[in-house]
């Protein structure tokens, strides 16, 4: 057990993956000597060499496309997209090539690649540095999409994603990068695609992931003071979704509120709402509600606090749910 930030936990997880499997390699802009703009790969090039920790030319399609070639020849590339808003130049490679190689090849080929993307807002950044692109990727068959919410999960989930034989979009909540938490490097980890009940409760279920888990736990703690018991589920995996954990929680509480930073329309919350109403219809006491980013391009940072779901907006939704 040790206490570390999410950045350090990811670094430790990547180090262990590099050490455990000589086929693992990292690629991305500025990840070598600089250690990445967030220092997630700090020190790894010195330790593992320039063949395994590769500074890439400035071309995201190139980074992902060449990594796919490496993957097809037996390597396990872990690519870093510097910021969420810079992943789109690689969109064709990801959604038309990486995602469907297994399908196109009748299962004879696979692309065991991890695409790491620092994502989400709340850091006072300029345009294209606060995006939440998860729904685009979760919408794409063949891709898996996971996101960590704390250092312990970050440490384990990155290793599990690398070990997976399918391509994994690995979303890192950059506003939580420097928050510390306990990391148990010996415990056997939860399976990668399982959700986790991080705070049990009985009155309503908050379904969240990545940066919003802490927000929801804080909301649940605040609600306790008012005598309300909220269950918080960290989805961890957005594709596939761990339906059973979600349904079991909603059946217990009868109420579900999905919370994410990404815009609401056709987002993860929409998918969850559809699945929950189909499977838990008779247990629901209220419609499934969503607390999300508004349907806007990410706004100027001086108003991002109002744009992003916060404790007040979550509790407001809880009030509305309980009013049914």
């Amino acid at each position, binding site marked *: 057990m040790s206490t570390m930030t999410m950045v350090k936990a990811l670094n430790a997880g990547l180090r262990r993956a590099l050490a455990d499997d000589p086929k693992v390699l990292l690629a991305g802009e500025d990840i070598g000597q600089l250690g990445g703009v967030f220092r997630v790969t700090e020190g790894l090039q010195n330790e593992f060499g320039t063949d395994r920790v590769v500074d890439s030319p400035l071309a995201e399609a190139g980074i992902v496309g060449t990594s796919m070639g490496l993957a097809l020849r037996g390597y396990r590339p872990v690519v870093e997209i510097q910021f969420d808003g*810079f992943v789109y130049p690689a969109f064709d490679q990801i959604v038309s090539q990486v995602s469907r190689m297994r399908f196109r090849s009748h299962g004879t080929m696979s692309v065991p690649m991890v695409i790491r993307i620092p994502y989400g807002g709340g850091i006072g950044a300029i345009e294209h540095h606060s995006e939440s692109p998860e729904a685009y990727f979760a919408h794409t068959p063949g891709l898996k999409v996971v996101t960590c919410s704390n250092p312990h999960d970050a440490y384990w989930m990155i290793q599990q994603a690398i070990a997976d034989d399918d391509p994994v979009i690995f979303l890192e909540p950059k506003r939580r990068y420097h928050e510390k938490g306990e990391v148990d490097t010996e415990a056997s980890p939860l399976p990668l695609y399982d959700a986790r009940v991080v705070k049990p409760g009985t009155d309503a279920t908050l379904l969240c992931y990545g940066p919003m888990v802490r927000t929801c736990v804080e909301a649940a703690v605040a609600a306790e003071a008012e005598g309300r018991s909220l269950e918080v589920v960290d989805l961890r995996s957005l594709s596939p979704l761990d339906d059973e954990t979600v349904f079991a929680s909603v059946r217990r509480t009868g109420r579900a509120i999905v919370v994410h930073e990404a815009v609401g329309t056709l987002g993860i919350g929409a998918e969850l709402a559809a699945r929950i109403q189909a499977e838990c219809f008779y247990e629901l006491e209220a419609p499934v509600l969503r607390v999300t980013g508004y349907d806007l391009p990410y706004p100027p940072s001086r108003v991002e606090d109002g744009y992003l779901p916060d404790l007040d907006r979550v509790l407001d939704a809880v009030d509305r749910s309980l009013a049914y």
Partner: protein
Amino acid sequence: MTEPAGTDVFAVGDEPIQLLDPSGRRVDHPDFSYSGTDADIASHLRDMVLARRIDTEATALQRKGELGLWPPALGQEAAQIGSGRTLRDPDLIVPSYREHGVAWCAGIDPVDLLGTFRGTAMVDWPSRPDGFHLYSFVIGTQALHAVGMAMALQRDGQVGNDDPAANGAAIVYFGDGATSQGDVNEAFVFAASYAAPVVFFCQNNQYAISEPASLQSRVPLYRRAAGFGFPGLRVDGNDVLAVHAVTQLAMDRARRGEGPVLVEAYTYRMGAHTTSDDPTKYRLAAEQDAWKAKDPIERVKTYLLSTGAIDQAWLDALAAESEALAERLRAGCLALPEPALGEQWQHVYAGMPPALARQREEYLAYEASFEGASE
């Protein structure tokens, strides 16, 4: 439309075209000369000094927490002023995100630049002229837009007219890192295919954040143009006279309808990539010192003092003007209007779809519920 021009129209090579050396001495070049007077050069010096002051003040404002981020253009003043001062209507200027000196030349109030980096606004600025496009933050993406704008100039009859003043061209700014992007290479292809009136102005400042230009290209960047079928030129990006002369020629050529040119302004990013960056992690002080000796401002100052075109009193007046500008920047930054989230719904679409309008109403009602509660 004219046929794509050959690549042999300029007999130049890897040695950057230079007209004023780092010691402040004018040098001759067989193909290029600076057409202006010493008074013109003094005006470039003033522009460069003020551009640098804008830059250092914005960096200071970030350090004080008044800006979220600032991408300094320190060291690139000659590349930006030298090129920027060749531009006029109906030229179209397409910047990346570090073109503060070009923005200055275009008449943009530097206070306006700050809103984008303070987080009070997106990218449009009240003082932005029609011919100056928004800053772009996704690397290289704007090169394609510039080619499209150049294609519009062709269709609008603003290229190749007998009256040179009626002609325009687009100029797009990007860095060494951007030359690796597909968008930039596709822009080269389209520009060549259509002989589009566009100047690709690459400021090779040697680094894409931490990555040296050698990671992006094994040949001097200007030579890339030959493979696409248009001329490339490498100019000393710290020499404002050479940059002016080369850009002038490239723009005039494009305006006449003779197609694109790639200009590689060979310069150095003296500062960090942005205020979030720490260059000591990836480059040596000795390298920075070597480039400091090639400073774009010092050589012009030395030259103009040697000819007597300026004197110490002139420089003192410029220093006072710089400080006044910095003071205006500080005050202007703090006075930038704060945005309201409720306004952000206005500009997503030409007309607001009903569901979006409803969402905005719900947001406003939610906001109002807090104001009521706090009273």
